[in-house]
């Protein structure tokens, strides 16, 4: 845990995610979107092209990076290639999250990556969940091929608890292949498929939410059906409207949705102070009985998900959106902590 002086916040909305497909070779227990071999929904190519054009046109190419995710984006190589080539034509950097299933053989993996020169960054996922479906050797080959092709990357490992022996074993194995700064660890939480087996999971729990700000809310994500969320976190699993559902591209233009996110008070409050601040405000408002009784330690996403799962909290957040004094505080808070003036410029302060 670092203070703001030592670690930088990611810039707001310089990165937009495209969830290309729900198909995946794995059915990981922790998957919040319930991806798997039995899922075949994917982003229509014409939609992808339309949305990419709109993103490129937004505020004179304000967005730099398109992050392709799923499911497994390499599942449909034709779609992946077409989307990447189109994104590159529109001058985007392209990053991809992958499980590495395609790297059964080293040289073939290298050839595949060489055939996709638009890839600027790879995130390769492995952990005890993925390894039930994707042999670790594939991940080793994927890392090797990525290194051979000179593509920047990191390896993502998800765990319920960093003290877990299996997590530490996987982490040690990855450390034999790459430097520590290329490894990212995330904490799972009971959402998506994991909500169906929460009793079997080994979380570390706490009475209080994590105190850190949320960084995931700096990057919206677009789904195949046109929904745009403020992040790619577990909130996408909630069936109700909430402040981080930014809009739907089948009803509203990209520019309207992204402009709306610039003045979304709850989204930016999360970016500034995290769900912990919302918990404090809810207590002050006399709504403690609607707060979670416990939180997954180290999981900002879990705290946010738990809050937004409550209908009374969601209603209260809608009212908070209209609170002029809080809006003002968030707008100036963005300037003070993040050097961002978007909300001040658009919000009429």
């Amino acid at each position, binding site marked *: 845990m670092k203070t703001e002086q030592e670690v930088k916040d990611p810039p707001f909305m310089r990165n937009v995610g495209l969830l290309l497909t729900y198909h995946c070779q794995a059915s990981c227990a922790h998957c919040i979107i319930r991806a798997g071999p039995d899922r075949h929904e994917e982003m229509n190519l014409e939609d992808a092209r339309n949305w990419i054009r709109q993103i490129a046109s937004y505020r004179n190419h304000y967005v730099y990076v398109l992050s392709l995710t799923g499911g497994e984006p390499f599942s449909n190589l034709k779609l992946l290639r077409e989307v990447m080539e189109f994104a590159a034509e529109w001058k985007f950097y392209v990053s991809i999250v992958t499980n590495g299933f395609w790297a059964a053989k080293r040289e073939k993996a290298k050839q595949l990556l060489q055939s996709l020169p638009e890839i600027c960054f790879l995130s390769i996922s492995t952990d005890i969940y993925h390894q039930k479906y994707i042999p670790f050797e594939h991940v080793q080959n994927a890392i090797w091929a990525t290194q051979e092709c000179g593509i920047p990357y990191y390896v993502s490992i998800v765990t319920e608890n960093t003290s877990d022996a299996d997590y530490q074993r996987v982490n040690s194995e990855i450390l034999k292949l790459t430097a520590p700064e290329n490894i990212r660890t995330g904490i799972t939480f009971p959402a998506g498929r994991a909500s169906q087996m929460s009793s079997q999971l080994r979380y570390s729990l706490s009475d209080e939410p994590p105190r850190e700000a949320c960084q995931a809310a700096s990057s919206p994500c677009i789904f195949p059906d046109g929904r745009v969320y403020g*992040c790619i976190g577990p909130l996408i699993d909630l069936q109700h409207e909430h402040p981080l559902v930014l809009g739907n591209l089948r009803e509203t233009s990209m520019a309207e949705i992204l402009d709306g996110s610039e003045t979304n008070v709850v989204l930016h409050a999360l970016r500034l102070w995290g769900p912990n601040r919302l918990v404090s405000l809810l207590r002050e408002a006399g709504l403690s009985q609607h707060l979670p009784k416990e939180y997954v330690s180290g999981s900002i996403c879990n705290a946010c998900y738990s809050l937004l799962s409550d209908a009374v909290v969601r209603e209260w957040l809608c009212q908070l959106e209209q609170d002029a004094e809080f809006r003002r505080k968030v707008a100036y808070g963005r300037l003070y902590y993040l050097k961002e003036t978007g909300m001040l410029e658009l919000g009429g302060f």
Partner: protein
Amino acid sequence: MEKETATAPTTEFKIPAELLKVFKGDLRLIPVHLPVAGYIMFDAAMLKSILLSGDQAARANLAKQLDALSQAGGELVIIAR
């Protein structure tokens, strides 16, 4: 493609004194690592990695410029390809 650089906002915003006091007295914490919930978020570290992965001499220089820009509170620069 034209090189696009950041420019200062056309309107200078001044933080009200009472809010400035609140913010200065506040401890804001951010996690060390970005979330791994589904995709990579672009930040200066990633751009530096991209820059350093190709032509070392030219890109190392750009990476240094990016550091200097970040320290000064500046914006990212889009480089023509």
